[in-house]
């Protein structure tokens, strides 16, 4: 069965019903294991002490924030190129989740930064890029909210998402450049050369847990969006009971 068959919203909803319980169970299990490992198994970092435990949520959130934008960019291609009916539903449902993940990433980053660098915020290249990503998520959400017609809003947002996807590497490159010019002296670089396996395992488990959580939320938000569109269509039909959806044409010669 091709992915195309799930274009039909009803079939999509049925599929979600089947997948969702399994996904939720897997997600809960992954979180249980991940949290246990990150608190009880992972050693303290010799340099950063216990604050390294923030990494187990900060880094997965950052990864997923970027993955979420990639999913939105692919969905946007789906909207514009293949005109897949679920593509803009997927993109729209992903945006708030992406924004929340970026927000988490920023806040945990700040809370990690304070004890480590002595400041909540530095205009580090990574932090700045993530901030820009956050603004773009919020802008896209605003665009969706402002436009009444979901089809039109979907197309407009798709164009913006793709332009953003073209732009993000340029922004990243620019911010890196800018950052090397204005490098603050006291920053400790995050990327140590190696990461101890005792820490890598909990990190990967947590990343898996967050990924599963993302997909659970994404599928549920998509399901809501499909329902919302159904409600909208039905309300429009309710408003035009007198003039239903079709017109009849009769042509006749004059004179």
């Amino acid at each position, binding site marked *: 069965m091709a992915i195309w068959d799930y274009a039909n919203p009803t079939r999509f909803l049925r599929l979600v019903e089947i997948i969702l319980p399994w996904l939720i169970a897997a997600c809960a299990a992954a979180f249980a294991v991940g949290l246990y490992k990150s608190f009880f198994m992972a050693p*303290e970092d010799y340099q950063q002490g*216990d604050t390294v435990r*923030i990494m187990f949520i*900060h880094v997965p959130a950052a990864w997923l924030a970027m993955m979420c934008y990639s999913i939105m960019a692919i969905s946007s291609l789906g909207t514009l190129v293949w005109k897949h009916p679920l593509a803009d539903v997927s993109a729209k449902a992903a945006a708030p*989740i992406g924004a*929340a993940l970026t927000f988490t990433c920023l806040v*945990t980053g700040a*809370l990690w930064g304070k004890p480590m660098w002595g400041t909540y915020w530095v205009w580090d290249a990574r932090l700045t890029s993530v901030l820009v990503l956050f603004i773009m998520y919020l802008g896209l959400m605003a665009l969706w909210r402002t436009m009444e017609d979901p089809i039109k809003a979907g197309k407009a947002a798709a164009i913006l998402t793709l332009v953003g996807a073209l732009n993000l590497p340029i922004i990243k490159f620019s911010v890196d450049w800018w950052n090397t010019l204005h490098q603050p002296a006291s920053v400790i670089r995050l990327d140590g050369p190696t990461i101890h396996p005792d820490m890598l395992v909990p990190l990967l488990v947590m990343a898996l847990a967050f990924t599963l959580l993302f997909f659970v939320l994404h599928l549920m938000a998509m399901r809501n969006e499909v329902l919302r569109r*159904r409600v909208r*269509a039905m309300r429009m039909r309710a408003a035009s009971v007198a003039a239903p959806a079709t017109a009849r044409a009769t042509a006749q010669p004059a004179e």
Partner: protein
Amino acid sequence: MDPFDLGPHAGFIVASYIVTFGTMAALIVWVLVDRARQLAALKELEEQGIARASARRDKS
């Protein structure tokens, strides 16, 4: 190793976990509330006797 002794920066660690799980909980609540709202609206419309648009569109 005592897992509940988080060292001198315990406040930051706890705060970041609270923020993370608070945000995720907010997302989950939003998704569930949104679903309940749409289902209620759907039910209300169906009680009014409006047929589902997709029932017709599926055929074409």
